[in-house]
């Protein structure tokens, strides 16, 4: 199991051929209290870089992009009633959607945790 990052502050945790996507602790901190999440529909086909979801905080609304290409297999419905999960537990309970990874090669082009940490210094 590896976790990779994008410069736009999404993470993707790779479990076999599935990726679990959310935003990093750094991103939730910068956004402030999340008040609304617009989830993708299950079955949606995404290309790397496509807009997959929208998170809205008291400060800003921002897109969550697809870190890799693939098909949405599951979304975190708990966020609809409790968007604050992204603030309290961004990397576990605050995940946003799961994606069936179409091209495993795309994973390699993403940032590893050291490179991401350097970006957010």
């Amino acid at each position, binding site marked *: 199991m590896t976790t990779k990052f994008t410069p736009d502050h999404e993470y993707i945790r790779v479990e076999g051929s599935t990726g679990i996507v959310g935003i990093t602790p750094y991103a939730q901190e910068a956004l402030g209290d999340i008040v609304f999440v617009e989830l993708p529909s299950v079955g949606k086909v995404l290309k790397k870089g496509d807009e997959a979801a929208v998170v*809205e*905080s008291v*400060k*800003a*609304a*921002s897109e969550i992009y697809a870190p890799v290409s693939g098909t949405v297999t599951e979304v975190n419905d708990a966020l609809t009633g409790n968007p604050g999960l992204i603030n309290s537990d961004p990397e576990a309970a605050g995940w946003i959607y799961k994606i069936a990874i179409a091209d495993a090669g795309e994973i390699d082009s993403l940032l590893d945790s050291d490179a991401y940490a350097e970006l957010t210094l």
Partner: protein
Amino acid sequence: MRYLPHSDHERAEMLGVIGATDIDALFSAVPKSALKTFDLGLPAHSPEFLVEAHMKALAAKNHAGADGPFFVGAGAYRHHVPATVDHLIQRSEWLTAYTPYQPEISQGTLQMLFEFQTQVAKLTGMDVANASLYDGSTGTAEAVLMARRLTRRNKVVLSGGLHPHYRDVVRAYLKDDADLECLSASPEGQGDILDHIDEQTAAIVVQTPDFYGHLRNIKTAADAAHAKGALLIVVITEVVSLGLLEAPGALGADIVVAEGQSIGNALNFGGPYLGLMATRKEFIRQMPGRLCGETVDAEGQRGFVLTLSTREQHIRREKATSNICTNSGLCALAFSIHMGLLGEAGFTRLARLNHANACKLADALAAVNGVEVLNSTFFNEMTIRTSLPAAALIERLAQRGILAGVPVSRLEPTDASIANLIVLAATELTTDADIAALCAALSEELK
């Protein structure tokens, strides 16, 4: 100069604290070629009584509504505004406050906006209303853009009964794109927008009472739109009609846009006016404009804040729901106070009075030779066909001191079939004597 507090002595003292030799030193970043290199040739400052005389002389050249019989409507209506309304909106705390960005010291404006939103939601029968937009015409354009965002479809059909100015504004906002279909003018209430709805349609826009005064069937339009997955946008230019007519929300409307000027706001030659917008609960995140919401403060006391504002200040600005920054706060206040004074009892009576006077007007006009009333249904406004071209006729009646309505050709100059049509409105201010004077003058002119 009466608005400027500093004496020359104080100015010199302040420059001393700054360490500047003279005021021009503070403008040192301005290129020399552009700083005070001109003589404006504008008049010098003037005492209050002279300014007043100047403005009064200009105002006196206009024929005011109260100067004679008045039947002009077509999107702006002459109603009575209680003295209380105009007094209250001139209180410093309402007039000279800004947008309530600091809620702790803006609870007056915020609570008023919450009350206003509630009033508009109840009037329209919709779940939620925003804190107002510029006016009905720009509100209609915003509603069309909102429908496109919601449906992710592009085609929009505008009814032939939509106010021609509103249609023109939608055209300008949409850059007249190929997916905008504007049906031709339908002064007799004809034209079936329902035939134009297909699977690509984002929304149809239907006005009721329409520009020509006809009442349109909203339920039928809503059902037809929904059958194809399209939205129904209902436009209302005379909000008083909602005192007697069924709420669009009860008939299936998805977005309601109205011009709110009729309640609390004077004619003002066209502005400032008040755009009302209401919609379904599930659409609020795509609704443009400010919203006020209830919350609590750090001690648990009820209070109000502007909310969901990130929709407008989207981090990627091109995704913002609109570029609107200002609402029409003071006009919304006037509306809300007037509506609070009326209440259901007063508002219903006001609407009945408008309709009753319009019925009298229609009956009297129908009896004039050379006049045909085109409406079988109306609220307080109707269209007549006259035996002579309307524009010149209206001008001659104006010379007699009667403002007899709007020649449709003024708004639709290219359509020859409507050259003899006039749109007229009656309100609670219309008297039997006004109607008699109009009909007598028309009889003479059309002899």
